[in-house]
Structure formats: C-alpha cells, structure tokens
C-alpha cells in the first residue's frame, strides 16, 4: 500500500475530495497546515510594528491506498488541485508496511 501526502490550497479541498471519492478513495486524513515554499507570505502591520508572515495556509491530505490505485490518485489530485498559480502544492508518495481497521481488525487492503 502507499501513503499519499498532498499539500493543496484550502479552497481546493472540496473539489479534490469529490474527485477522489469518484475514483473510489474511501477515506483520508485532512490537516490544516502552514505551508512554506516558493509562494511568499504577506506582511501585517500592527501600530507600526511590521511582521512578515512567511507561511501560507494550506491543507494537507493523507491517503492510504492499494499500490494499484496510487498513480490514479496522484493524477486525480494533480488535476483537481491545479490552478496554474504558484502555491498549488505538492504530492508525495511513501510505502506503507501495514494497515489495520480498528473496528474490525481487518488488515491490509481490506482495511482501507
């Protein structure tokens, strides 16, 4: 199995989720994160005190899928999250040794 980690723009979350459900992804973990990258942050001034906010709000998706589905998931995210503007995000793929569903104890692909 593979763990697919994607950092995307917050307002793209719904679109990505729908696209993934469409191709049969049945679960994911979503985290609000602060992203750092080529897309620069912004400055805020409070009574003359200037603060550079170097981080940009992003959403991180973590999805575990059978190896077979991995590439399709990556492509789907690529399409759904794309705005062609800087800061669209990244996708990373890692190997997963094992997966278990807590409720049933099922392991492996059945757990997903």
């Amino acid at each position, binding site marked *: 199995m593979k763990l697919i980690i994607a950092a995307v723009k917050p307002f793209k979350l719904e679109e990505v989720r729908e696209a993934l459900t469409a191709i049969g992804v049945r679960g994911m973990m979503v985290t609000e994160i602060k992203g750092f990258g080529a897309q620069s942050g912004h400055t*805020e001034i*409070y*009574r*003359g*005190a200037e*603060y550079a*906010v170097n981080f940009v709000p992003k959403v991180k998706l973590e999805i575990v899928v059978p190896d077979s589905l991995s590439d399709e998931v990556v492509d789907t995210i690529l399409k759904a999250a794309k705005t062609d503007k800087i800061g669209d995000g990244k996708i990373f793929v890692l190997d997963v040794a094992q997966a278990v569903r807590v409720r049933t104890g099922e392991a492996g692909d059945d757990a997903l």
Partner: protein
Amino acid sequence: MKNLSKITGFASAFALAALPALAQDAEPALDTGDTAWMIVATALVGFMIFPGIALFYSGLVRAKSALSLLVQTALIACTVMICWVIYGYSFAFGGSESPFFGGFGKLFLSGVGVDSLSGTIPEYLFIAFQMTFAAITPALIIGGFAERIKLSGAVLFSVLWVTFVYFPIAHMAWDANGLFFNWGTMDFAGGTVVHINAGIAALVGAYVIGPRIGLGKDLMAPHSLPIAFIGASVLFIGWFGFNAGSALAANGTAVLAMINTFTATAGATVAWALIETLTRGKASALGCISGMIAGLVAVTPAAGFVGPVGAIFLGAIASLIAYFFVAVVKNKLGYDDSLDVFGIHGIAGIVGAVLTGVFAAPSLGGVGYAEGVGMGAQVFVQIKAVVITIVWGAVVSFILYKVTDVIVGLRVSADDERQGLDQTSHGESAYHQ
C-alpha cells in the same frame, strides 16, 4: 459662579447647586434627574473597567497571556476600590485646605450618610463616581508592561501609585482647594489626572521593566482583534459616563460633553484611518480602535468647554499626532510600551489638554474662558498643569517601581514569560477548543 462653573466639570456641581434656576429652593436639595443620570454615569465608568479596558488589553496580547490582563485589571480595580473607601476619598476630597492633600477627615467615609448631599446628588454617589475614576487609572497603566509583569508586583505598585500619585493629583485638579483648580486649569473630566498620569507611569514602567523577550523577532500580533474591538467599543460608550458624568448633573453642560465625545471620537477614528490609508494603502481595525481611544482621551479635558465642530478637529489632530508617535517615533526609541499606553493615552492626553485651551475660544465655538483670561494665558496654565503632572508622575512612579521590585519583584522568569503568564501565573488557559 459662571466663571467657576467653566473651570471644571466637577466644580460646576457645587456651583449649580446654588443657582435658583436649577434647585427648587435656595438650600441644595436632591434632584432625582441629576441623581438618576449620575447613578448611570457611575455604572458606565464601571463598565469601562468591567469589561472595557480588560478586554481591550486582553485582545491585543498573545493568547498565552490573554487571561493575565483580565486578572490584573480586575484585581487592581477591586483593590483600589477598597483603598478608596478606606482612605482614598479622604486623601483626595477629605476637606483639608492644602492644595496637595485632602487630609484624614473622611477616612472610612466617616461622616457620610444616606442623606449627605454633594450638590444636587447624594455624597455617596459623588464618592462612587470618583471611585471608578481612581479604579480605572492604574488599570490603564498595566498595558505598558503587559505579558511579563508579576501579578503581585502589578497590584502592589497600583496601591502605592494611587496613594502617592493619583490621590494627590486628583486633589490638585478637582478639589476646591486644589492647586490646578485654583490656577483655573480647564480639565473637564480628567485628562491630566487620568490619562497623562497613566501614560507617563506606563512609559516609566516600560523602561524599568524592560521589553518582552523576542520583541521585534517573534510575532506579537493581537491574538483577538474582535475582543479588542469589543473592549474599545465598551470604552467608547462608557466614556459618556466619564465625560458627560463629569458635569455631575443632567444639564446642558453634560449634554455638550456628550455630543463632543461623539464628534471628537468620530474625527479621531476617521483621521487615523485616513493617515493609514495614505501611508500604507490600508485602513486597519487596530487603527480604527486606536484612533477611537485617542479621540476619547483627547476630548476628555475639553468635553464641556469646546463646540461639537471644534471637537472634530481636536480629536483628529490628537489622533494624527498619536499615530505618528506609535507608528514612527516609538519604533525608533525601542522601548516596549507594549499596548501604547503612553503613545495613545499620554500623547493624546497632552495634546487634548493643550488644545482645550485653544478650542475653548468662543471664536472657535467654545464656551469661552474665565473673565479676564485669554487664549494665551489659558494655554499657559494648561501646559503648567501638564508639566507638573508629568514631572510628579514620572519621578514618583519611578521610585514606586523600584520599591515594588524590592518588595515582591516586578518581572516573572524568562521561562514563565515564554510559556505565558496564563499558565505560569494563573494556572489556566484562556481557550480550550
């Protein structure tokens, strides 16, 4: 009479009491309308403390110290109220003839009863109204050294400060025997006593206690501007009690003070927003509430003396100068008056005190000066009172900080400061979400 009643809001009460036109008969009697208004005015100033200033400050600090400002405000205000009934009222209005000190005549409010009058209102009401002024002033100061002060230090300093700075200066400004009062200084609702006084004490405190760890490096943005906005708005509304209440009656002067409080604040808020727009292209929420407070402070000494249109300018000018100070000057000087108590209360207070002498001119829509006094002379006595207040306040405050530091200490440890006062001084977190 007329002359006197022009000099200061508080004075007018005594003055008016004797005017046949306003009292049913020669000897003063309780007026239910005046009493009704002053009860409300007192509650409104209380509202400026609970929750006004507490929220204003709490919203402007980081989440990890949000509660510390609430606790400090509440405990300082409550402690000072207790001091006030025990000896504060006596020290300020105890009836002594000294220009500096009210004496021991009214310790524990002795001699005051349900039927004692002060002008057309019960004396207990005058006492309560004045008590709220005494309670809020030290609470204003703590903004100067927020997020690093020891609770015990903040409270002890406040008690010492009201005793040696506030009570005497209140006597000087508002008691019939007071120094400034007899100079004919125009301070309608306490620009010198409350705002300049608090501003200067905060500035000295910021120097003595030193800047927050990470100043200029870490993000120290306000943790909740909506909460600060609530605080500022409550201060705005409560200020009607502060300013219009200083007429000590429900009369034309009170009403003039009210409309001026509106227009000066409007002018100041718009002015701050405009200067921000010009200098950085954006008008901020923090800017709006900063301008609002600057305007309220500036109109405090002027409220009953200037006209509604003049007040717009008075507020706007004070706001622009305060902006220039906190946005430009302060960053050069590099001290950490964390919530700009000096930058806003101090600066706008000084500007307001001086401009009161100007905009009181009938030619500018003001109610005019005491007989035989011209603008120049008035401005001069205004400045004299300001200078005395600053010098007295700065020197005595400095000493009291040192004394406090020796007795209980002023500053928490670096680790505690870094972790945040809420957990280390109060054992709580502001939010669990």
